[in-house]
């Protein structure tokens, strides 16, 4: 069950896994996510599905090693099995004919964005893609995304490749009439994108990543405020209208366990998996 068939290192601390999970693969649509638990003592944590192959029965996950759970997952090898993989969870992204679609992906989220962009491209949308990373070495899925995009841009925070920062996106908006913008990535980026598109009145869907526990609507840990209403991101989302999201609340809720996360990482460094 849940055997890792393919493992690749895409960039420093960014890994790709293809996992054998045929029942999940059969139901996966772009925008779905899974929850993993990798050991008896492990926490439940979500990763967005970056692709599904129904003939192989696999789902693709691409993740950043940021703390204890993702670092430990990064140590798994081809052939290893993952204890729990739950999914597909959440609502899929809305895939429809929007005309010109702007797809923006930050960091590891370029991979699940590729899954979304491919679907939009396949049904005839004109896909304009922007992917960004802190530095050029951390860019992933460039070729894959370019091949499903009608227009393709790169942005880095330090300008080491492509555009510096995201301000150039305004030019894209000035030059094209965009029917829909879709953004996946770190919260700060989602917020920035939403602020850029807002004056243009372009509906902008963002995939939010609040902390989650069960991810089936039973705890409320993932609650976010959208348009003044409380929503559970795991069942009502994770895709929401970026112009309606209360970003400050999301950011502060996501910081709840910062010190504990550091403790967990330190504990892991000293003692390893411990079981």
């Amino acid at each position: 069950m849940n055997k890792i068939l393919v493992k690749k290192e895409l960039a420093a601390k960014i890994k790709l896994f293809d996992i054998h999970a045929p029942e999940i693969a059969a139901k996966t649509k772009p925008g779905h996510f899974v929850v993993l638990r990798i050991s008896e003592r492990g926490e439940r944590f979500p990763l967005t599905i970056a692709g599904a192959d129904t003939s192989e029965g696999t789902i693709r996950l691409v993740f950043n090693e940021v703390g204890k759970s993702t670092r430990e997952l990064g140590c798994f090898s081809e052939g290893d099995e993952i204890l729990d993989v739950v999914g597909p969870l959440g609502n899929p992204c809305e895939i429809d004919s929007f005309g010109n679609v702007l797809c923006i992906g930050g960091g590891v989220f370029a991979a699940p964005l590729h899954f979304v962009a491919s679907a939009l491209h396949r049904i005839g949308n004109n896909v304009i893609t922007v992917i960004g990373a802190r530095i050029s070495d951390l860019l992933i899925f460039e070729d894959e995304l370019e091949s499903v995009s009608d227009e393709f841009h790169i942005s880095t925070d330090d300008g080491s490749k492509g555009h510096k920062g995201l301000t150039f996106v305004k030019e894209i908006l000035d030059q094209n009439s965009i029917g829909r913008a879709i953004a996946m990535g770190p919260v700060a980026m989602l917020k920035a994108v939403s602020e850029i598109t807002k004056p243009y009145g372009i509906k902008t869907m963002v995939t939010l990543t609040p902390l989650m526990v069960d991810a089936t609507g039973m705890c409320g840990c993932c609650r976010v405020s959208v348009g003044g209403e409380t929503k559970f991101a795991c069942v009502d989302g994770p895709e929401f209208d970026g112009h309606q999201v209360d970003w400050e609340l999301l950011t502060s809720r996501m910081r709840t366990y910062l010190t504990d996360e550091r403790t967990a990482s330190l504990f892991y460094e000293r003692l390893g998996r411990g079981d």
Partner: protein
Amino acid sequence: MAEKKKINLNRVPIPKQEPSVRSKNFNEVALGYSEEQAVEEANRCIECKKLGCKEGCPVNVDIPEFIVAVRDGDMPEAVRIFKSKNSLPGICGRVCPQETQCEMTCNLAKKGAPIAIGRLERYVADWERAHPEAAEKQKEKPIPNGKKIAVIGSGPAGLTCAADLAKLGYEVTIFEALHARGGVLMYGIPEFRMPKAIVQGEVDYVKSLGVEIKLDWVIGRIATVDELLGNGYDATFLAPGAGAPMFLNIPGENLSGIYSANEFLTRTNLMKAYLFPKYDTPLKVGKRVAVFGGGNVAMDASRCALRLGAEEVYIIYRRSIVEMPARLEERENAEEEGVIFKLLTNPSRFIGDEQGKVKAVELYEMELGEPDESGRRRPIQKPGSEFIMEVDTAIPALGTRPNPIIPSTTKGLAVTKWGTIQTDEASGRISRDRIWCGGDMATGAATVISAMGAGKRAAADIDAYLRG
């Protein structure tokens, strides 16, 4: 029946951990009877002709028969009698609200000293666990009848229905959304009231009857109920409980440091946050904790908060102690351990610091007015009584409602305004053919034993239906 016995009104008390000790650990609070104590208590049963006790039990356990077996020291027989009606004795003996069920209707209850039926049950279950060699010999496996049943949810309703159907020869698969088996018994009720090893032992018994349990299967996502029915299952029993938390809906409720009781208890019990960082899931508990609500869930959350190191834990409840729905025993346990009750008090808003973390709650005092629809006196706000209380953790424990995943992905389910599935109580039938429902999903949050009763009735009706 024995000749008329002299009535003894001295219930044998159950030993417990001292409050000052137990409020710092997650070990079980009640320690259970010794054999002598169990026999002494069993001896008090007067073996009535007209049985009060059995009427009060939703699954009709043969109470006097198993008590007589305990009295005679024939524990394997006591286990056998019990399990013929109830597959989960170690669970029921611990968490059944006996005082409103079998013990309330026991004929000695009128005299104020009903037989401690729950404690005896618990004794019998624990005896069985300690004596696996003497445990009930596996009866021959029933002859498979070739019919397949899908049960959704591994809580008490699902487990009971699955066990009964397996005993009748059905091939039963339970689909469970979480990574653990047992429903609320695993994620909600704390270790110190319901040890998880005991839950797992009783689930293993259900498995030993031939039931398959598939974990990590969220029905409605990985497969819908209709897909199960189309893929070879002859019938489905829906028992997904009522796990979606309710909130107060007051300003500031999404501040960091505010947890639904479900999140707080899930992190603690299912994910074992009390063992962080050995276990990975963290839980931040401040020095001053406020729990809102007056039910069992509020008691559990407040007692967990104490054990997780909080210095002051408050239960804030808008009515008076008389209306409090929590079991008396749990209320007493909480008070003994140091939980502070603030009655006739209600919150109006939460106040956060610059980082978006809760730092205080505004409360106001209430008084009781005329009785409302529930028959309880309606609490009304005392004007001008607002005051601020500093807290660093807040836990709304206001109850739960059914999770909408199944109703929203299954065609043609008649759903009530409370989100429960409209269900015929006696049979578990619903608005759709070949689908039955029971437990909290049908009734809203209730009890373990009522969920088990529903599982049993549905199993009987499914069997009757499929045999035509």
